[in-house]
């Protein structure tokens, strides 16, 4: 009796769950796409808010009420994290394009740096808004 042959070929990250163990390299890459798409919510809110400010005080009051409600702040802060994460992901793309940081230990560290960096930059943004 021989043990069943181990699967050596790479698996698609779309098999996340019982078949694919998530790693920092694949998850940090997928998160760039997710944060890119998620920013639409913040951009649409920003554009509607700008239009309201341009049109009339009445419209500004209505949209600004939404923009400064708990839902509004959730969208702004969530968008800020998404923007910073996506930006750091872009910087990593430039590093990879230059052929740097491609070895797995460095790539794993870069993934962690994106999550930690985006969170730190979001906190700095909130502090800059308050101070």
């Amino acid at each position, binding site marked *: 009796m021989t043990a069943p042959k181990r699967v050596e070929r790479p698996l698609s990250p779309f098999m996340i769950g019982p078949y694919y163990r998530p790693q920092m390299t694949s998850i940090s890459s997928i998160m760039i*796409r997710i944060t*890119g*798409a998620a*920013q*639409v919510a913040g*951009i*649409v809110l*920003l*554009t*509607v808010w*700008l*239009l309201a*400010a*341009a*049109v009339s*005080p009445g419209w*500004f*009051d209505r949209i*600004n009420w939404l*923009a*400064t409600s708990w839902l509004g702040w959730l969208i*702004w802060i969530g968008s*800020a994290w998404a*923007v*910073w994460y996506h*930006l750091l992901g*872009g*910087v990593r*793309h*430039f590093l990879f*394009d230059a052929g740097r940081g491609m070895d797995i230990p460095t790539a794993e560290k870069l993934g962690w740096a994106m999550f930690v960096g985006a969170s730190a930059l979001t906190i700095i*943004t*909130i502090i*800059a*808004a308050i101070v």
Partner: protein
Amino acid sequence: MRYLTPRKRAEGLGSARHGTRHHMAMVISGWALLFIVPVFVVILARTLGRDFETVRATFANPFMAILTGLFLFVGMRHFARGAQTAIEDYTHGFAREALIMLANAIAYLVIGGGFYALVKLAL
């Protein structure tokens, strides 16, 4: 009669027939956004929650008006191209074409709406 050889017509274009144009557009807009976005995000964060007149004055400032215009135009074109890549990864046929058009429509609606607001605020 074709004057170009089949090889000459195919060379450098790849399966998408556009060569590296899409990739280069993402790299170039990415580099631009690396400079535009941090400045814009910090100024926007400091403007949110302020009163009507302060918000209007902030975006009527020439520097901020131009920065916001660049942020919306470069950002939304970057979004449309990025979304296109994602759509091409997951969908095929009619749905693919329709979703790419939808992504472009959203991008140009935001650009158009934003520019109208900026012109009205700045003039």
